[in-house]
């Protein structure tokens, strides 16, 4: 294949097909460096009796060199934000600053044990306190808990607080309104709380109307626990009616939860805590640059308005008389969602990023993220029509509508073909309300040149769809492996390596 302009051509590089590590090495080989035993040897068999394990677990037998090569080779089969543009809509793959990584590894943070006394943890508690204050400043909430380990964990936490609030008023409402464009985690979090989802349709222009919410609320008098809304929505649109919608929900006795997955579109522009939102989670691994690590760790702090403070998870970090301390005695708290204090290493990274950017820098990040998405829309809209005529915020959501009508090529093919041009594909087939969706989120860390090249690639694919559809439908051609058989994987699940018979 050839590209059409500078930077579009992917190149091949030496890549090793790498067998599972269990098929490597030799009996008796080890990569361990263990201290000599300087106390008396004991007999595990005698001490453990019936519990003694005769055979060691089936771990590989390889040297440190083998392990290093194995995982280095595997790593080279991954795409990554440090390799190129990774425009996964809603996932916000922006550059992960290197200084964050260095700071998180400082002994004064990485070396702290959670059972240490408060006196020996003052710096860490201060960092958590400062991060909470910074997130309050940015989001407009009264307090923030740092405990949840990821966005979905934050949703669970937020819904628990909503229920606890209602129960403190002697009410037990169960219905939670959820727009059809919501992330799958929203309804799943509702179920995990044994509340019930009430789907709400977005209007033809892609946003929620107060009338629809009013109608939905009217169906369940006295039983509305709340509404979960993503703003900007998963269609990349600002929910312009949010204040009125919040009022409708509040009048029905409900609270409003905001999924903050797209909060990176609002920094310095809108503080959700001032728009009628009562609870919101913030993904530190999206908006605040903590790395995604191939699937985590994330971190999902949750902000709340004043009246929900008593229900925050325990412990909270407090400042009194110049000392930071952990407050466990919080009788109305929902309790704890996990052990210890949350993904502290992610707190350190996010705090580092926030302090580097400052208020002005964060605002600029939002401005350039929106500029980039709107710019891509301007370059692409003819071949890739927008999901809505409403203005895009931080992501451009489009679909295969035009290409599918004119050719046999569809979204999945476009996504796979983008790999041949050197890009990670956007999020595809989500949100579910838009058939064949392509959710393109460039983020503020991509330059104009990169965006031009990326748009050229997508436009080139649109041409190929007409001129050589098979080329697109059999893509990717340049990757180490071709399309994978997902049906086979699901029909005959092989979820671990097994020794050959």
């Amino acid at each position, binding site marked *: 294949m050839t590209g059409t302009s500078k930077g579009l051509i992917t190149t091949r590089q030496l890549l090793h097909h790498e067998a599972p590590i269990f098929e490597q090495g030799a009996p008796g080989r*080890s990569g361990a460096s263990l201290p000599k035993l300087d106390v008396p040897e004991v007999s595990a068999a005698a001490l453990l009796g019936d519990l003694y*394990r005769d055979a060691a677990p089936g771990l590989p037998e390889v040297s440190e060199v083998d392990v290093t090569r194995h995982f*280095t080779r595997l790593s080279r089969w991954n795409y990554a934000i440090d390799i190129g543009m990774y425009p996964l809509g809603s996932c916000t793959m922006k550059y992960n600053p290197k200084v964050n990584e260095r700071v998180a590894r400082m002994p004064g943070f990485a070396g702290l*044990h959670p059972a240490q006394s408060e006196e020996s943890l003052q710096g860490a508690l201060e960092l958590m306190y400062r991060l909470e204050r910074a997130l309050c400043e940015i989001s407009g909430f009264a307090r923030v808990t740092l405990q949840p380990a990821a966005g979905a964990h934050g949703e669970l936490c937020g819904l628990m607080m909503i229920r606890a609030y209602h129960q403190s008023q002697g009410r037990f409402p169960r219905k939670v309104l959820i727009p059809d464009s919501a992330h799958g985690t929203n309804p*799943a979090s509702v179920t995990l709380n044994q509340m019930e989802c009430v789907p709400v349709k977005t209007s033809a222009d892609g946003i929620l109307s107060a009338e629809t919410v009013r109608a939905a609320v009217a169906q369940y008098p006295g039983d509305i626990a709340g509404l979960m809304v993503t703003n900007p929505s998963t269609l990349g649109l600002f929910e312009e009616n949010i204040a009125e919608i919040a009022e409708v929900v509040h009048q029905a006795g409900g609270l409003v939860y905001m999924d903050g997955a797209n909060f990176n579109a609002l920094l310095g522009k809108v503080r959700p805590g001032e728009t009628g939102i009562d609870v919101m989670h913030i993904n530190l691994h999206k908006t605040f640059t903590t790395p995604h690590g191939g699937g985590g760790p994330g971190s999902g702090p949750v902000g709340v308005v004043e009246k929900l403070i008593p229900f925050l998870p325990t412990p909270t970090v407090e400042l009194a008389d110049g000392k930071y301390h952990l407050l466990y005695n919080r009788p109305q708290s929902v309790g704890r969602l996990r052990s210890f204090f949350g993904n502290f290493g992610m707190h350190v990274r996010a705090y580092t990023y926030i302090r580097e950017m400052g208020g002005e820098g964060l605002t600029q990040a939002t401005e350039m993220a929106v500029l980039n998405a709107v710019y891509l829309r301007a370059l692409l809209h003819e071949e890739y029509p927008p999901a809505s005529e409403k203005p895009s915020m931080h992501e451009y959501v489009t679909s295969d509508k035009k290409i599918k009508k004119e050719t046999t090529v569809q979204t999945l093919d476009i996504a796979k073909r983008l790999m041949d041009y050197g890009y990670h594909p956007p999020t595809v087939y989500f949100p579910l309300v838009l058939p064949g969706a392509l959710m393109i989120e460039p983020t503020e860390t991509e330059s104009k040149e990169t965006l031009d090249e990326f748009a050229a690639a997508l436009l080139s694919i649109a041409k190929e769809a007409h001129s050589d559809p098979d080329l697109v439908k059999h893509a990717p051609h340049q990757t180490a492996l071709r399309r994978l058989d997902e049906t086979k*994987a699901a029909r005959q699940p092989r979820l671990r390596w097994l020794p050959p018979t």
Partner: protein
Amino acid sequence: MRYIPHTDADVAQMLRIIGASSVEELFSHIPAQLRLKKPLDIEALDEVSLMTHLGQLGARSTPATGATVREGAALSFLGAGLIPHHVPVAVDMMLQRAEWYTSYTPYQPEVAQGTLQAVFEYQTLVSELFGPPVTPGQAAPYVSNASMYDGASATAEAVLMARRITGRSAVVACGAIHPQYLGTLHCYLDGIDSEGRGAIKTVGFGADGRVDLTALATLLAELGSTVACVLVQSPNYLGVLQDVSAVRALAQKAGALTVVACPEPLAFGLVKSPGSQGADIVAGEGIGLASGPSLGGPGVGLFAARSEHVRQIPGRLVGETVDQDGRRGYVLTLATREQHIRREKATSNICTNQGLIALAFAIHLCMLGKSGFRRLAELNLAKSEYLKQRLLGVRGFRLAVSGPTFNEIAVTVRGRAADVALRLREQGIFAGVPLDQPGFELPSLPDAERTLLIATTERHRREDIDHLVTALDEVCP
């Protein structure tokens, strides 16, 4: 701003193509009353000032180390759900490869085979640790998922899974369970159970620190066929290895599943796996073998279960398959359990998990290998037994419970444990966790306020242990 590449000329050109007169115009559709009217009040720092500021914050805490006291750090015997081991330098070096830490969840398998194969290998390792041994030619008896947030939330999810499988709701939590694991379980269940706190029943432990089996049998008989699962921890919060088979026999009679929580997976280098002892679901914590303690997070929730329950497992699963040219490859699979497909009918809401820490756990286990993992477990057992013998030689000290332990023991000392710990802290030693410390308390233990939970590992030299014992004896009244 070094992370934002836009020049003024870029912005001007982009705006021209968009057809907007200013960046501000891009936000003009947001209703004015919702707009923030003032700049965010956060001061920006350049890298030099940033490193100074964070260096100063870092210096205001005392890191815990396993080795002899050094300037500004403390010799630590803290465990209580996080027993830090030495993690080889090569592990963190590998994690710093950008292909690992700056990639996303592997949604597009053709460009994520590295992560997918690594998760597949991680799943294999966790199945080996927690499941029964594999018989060649037979199907895998146990499956692991791609990881959960941490041991406590993984345990709560395991209990929810048991409730789904059995269609029953009561949960019996037995013996000395980590108070934060139990707290998390209450957090997940109390709100959703109309019975409130009633859904979780507890059974105590005996003088040996193990589950009181008589009390368990009585309670199970009372509860009849309402019990979804019996939850037990091993090694438990007092460091004692639980005989899971005995608990499982009673659970099985009641038609309940057995869920085992394992905050110290290294024990299973020497101890029969929970799966071999009949556990249906196992949840654990891998932080101690994966990464630095980092104030308890990020760690990695380990999760494995008998294969027959695979469709009720929460979280992501990676499976082996082939590509269209027939080459071996890996994909996310059985996604119809998951929130992005099933929405409100999903097995869990979990999406992002702890991928990078799971990777660290896998890399470390590969380096240790079959012999190294077992030897590491032996070292831990030996150090802890040495400490045990030394402490028993101190006037007025005794083991809080008598059962077999692995690398953590509960010791009742002379005087208040918190006072003793404070005195030792002044000498640069984190002696152990007083069992009445907020967040770590075990009120069901008689004399909890006089008891310290002390963990020893391969990181402690004999002289470190001797130093601890001498210091403890000196400061106790």
